[in-house]
């Protein structure tokens, strides 16, 4: 076991896969000379040279589409968005070209490409720079959506994503890049579509992922287990699409109560989809309606108090957990 930061874990995954497969290259804004806007690609230009580590102009539609074209004829691009917010100007390329190409071409062209970068809110960045877009991308057939909450998962899942033959939306968190965690020594990968029970428990299941799990849910779990004298099971699906419903359903059959905590907006959010699946498959096991904690249904404001009030919090999770326990 080694202790590395999240940015180092991601850097290692890219570096190892570039060594393994010469078709893999990385491009994006500031990934080369600048060494990465968040230093994720530090040292890669020096090691792999300018044909495989490429600074792009500020032109997301252009370089995302370039990646799709390169993937269609046999390369395996990793396209970094400085943040996922900027992917919205490349949305046509991701949705119409990357996601649909295999189906629309009747199997003629597949698109092995990884779009990656940080998503979600940081601190005080305002409405355009704070978006959790996973439900939007998970909505699109043809895309897989991956969201690690630990360094170990980030490295293993990214390596698998780079080897996958489909377009991958890989969403990291900018506030977590410096956070450290253990990763196994040597080669390892983690399959997509397989979630993990991060903590076993018996009274309530909480499903959450990425930064909200790492930063908010764990705090809530620590507080609430003691405060309410309960045992909470925590599931990290790690992959939003395909979603590991089986793991969640099995957990709910044991705990009979489910709270889903996500950073995105409530309407048609990922939690709504999980909630439906659980209602459909484990209705008789539920002792309370499924509760969701999401961001408020507003564009995220700048002012600190408003920002904090809008996002999922320990208080909101406490209220949801108490509700499914009928202790509110």
């Amino acid at each position: 076991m080694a202790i590395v930061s999240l940015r180092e874990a991601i850097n290692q995954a890219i570096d190892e896969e570039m060594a393994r497969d010469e078709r893999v290259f990385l491009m994006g804004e500031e990934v080369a000379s600048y060494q990465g806007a968040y230093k994720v690609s530090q040292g890669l230009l020096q090691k792999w040279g300018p044909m495989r580590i490429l600074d792009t102009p500020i032109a997301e539609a252009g370089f995302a589409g370039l990646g799709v074209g390169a993937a269609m004829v046999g390369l395996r691009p990793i396209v970094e968005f400085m943040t996922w917010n900027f992917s919205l100007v490349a949305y046509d390329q991701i949705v119409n070209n990357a996601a649909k190409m295999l189906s629309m071409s009747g199997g003629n062209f597949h698109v092995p490409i990884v779009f990656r970068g940080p998503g979600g809110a940081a601190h005080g960045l305002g409405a355009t720079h704070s978006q959790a877009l996973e439900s939007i991308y998970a909505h699109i057939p043809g895309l897989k959506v991956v969201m690690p909450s630990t360094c170990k998962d980030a490295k293993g899942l990214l390596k698998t994503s780079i080897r996958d033959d489909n377009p991958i939306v890989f969403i990291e968190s900018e506030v977590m890049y410096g956070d450290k965690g253990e990763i196994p020594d040597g080669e390892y990968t983690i399959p997509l579509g397989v979630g993990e029970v991060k903590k076993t428990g018996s009274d309530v299941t909480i499903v959450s992922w990425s930064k909200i799990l790492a930063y908010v849910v764990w705090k809530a779990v620590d507080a609430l287990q003691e405060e309410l004298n309960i045992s909470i099971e925590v599931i990290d699906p790690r992959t939003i699409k395909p979603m590991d419903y089986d793991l969640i359903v099995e957990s709910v059959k044991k705990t009979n109560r489910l709270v889903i905590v996500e950073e995105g907006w409530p309407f048609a959010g990922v939690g709504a989809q999980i909630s439906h699946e659980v209602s459909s498959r484990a209705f008789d096991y539920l002792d309370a309606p499924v509760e969701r904690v999401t961001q408020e249904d507003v564009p995220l404001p700048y002012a600190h108090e408003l920002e904090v009030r809008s996002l999922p919090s320990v208080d909101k999770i406490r209220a949801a957990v108490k509700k499914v326990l009928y202790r509110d």
Partner: protein
Amino acid sequence: MNWYDDMLLVRRFEEKCAQLYGMGRIMGFCHLYNGQEAVSTGAIKAAITADDYVITAYRDHGPAISKGVDPRKILAELLGKYTGTTKGKGGSMHIFDREKNFLGGHAIVGGHIPIAAGVGFAIKYRREKKVCLCFLGDGATNIGAFHEGLNLVGLWKLPVIYIIENNKYGMGTAVERASAVDELHKKALAYNIRSEVVDGMDVLEVYKKVKAAADRAKETYEPALLEIETYRFRGHSMSDPVHGHYRSKEEVEKRKQSDPILLFADTLKEEGMATDQDFEDAEKRIKKIVEECVEFTENSPEPPIEELWKDVYFERNGA
């Protein structure tokens, strides 16, 4: 006569499409290539090889035929048959053929322009001697993806030849009503890309200019933009009238005087390379091919329902 056959096949194929569309056999949008045949024949059939790539927008039957895509499969695709180029998944606007290096058939205006940049990137990355021809309409030069794609190709010197098929109208809006610069080739100047205007009614001229640009790109990776002046003899799509309110009947009739197929026939006759008999023979050959397309299509099955869930995600068999 090889080129003449290609042009005539595109023309007669599209006429058959119009007929089948009128009979309600072809659904959706269907954009015909009539009038623009010298562009696909001169640029694709004549100027590049099977190893080179072609990508285009939704007016794609002509370029696909010129790239060697089986016209029987194209017609089958238009009728939604399982034997179609994309098993009935794509339709008229989305013709693809991996074996022929035909990369579509793209229906969001301008969306394929960065894809071509990526194909050029892959060629350079692997140090191959190939080129990617990317066809686009005059209307596509106003969308962001055009400018982002051209900037990348100019910046990184990628072997892509952008071919603007300037048929004077983006649907019903004339070029000068949509673009601040109506000499569209000038847009390449902003991206340090060599550009030229080409007479798109003259197949020999198209061949010469595209060949020169393609050969240069294969040697030096230098991109180019060619504004090929052409004209569509039919409406924007089958849903539209031939002229309508945006252009006069007289204008269309006048343009038809410079029909690229008739002009090429004149040239062949003047050069003593073909006789009237040869053209009659060509009509017979092409008629037979189009009949075979119809027969193949009529005898083809519909896609099975199980096909609905296939090809959403790519899975390797045993790899």
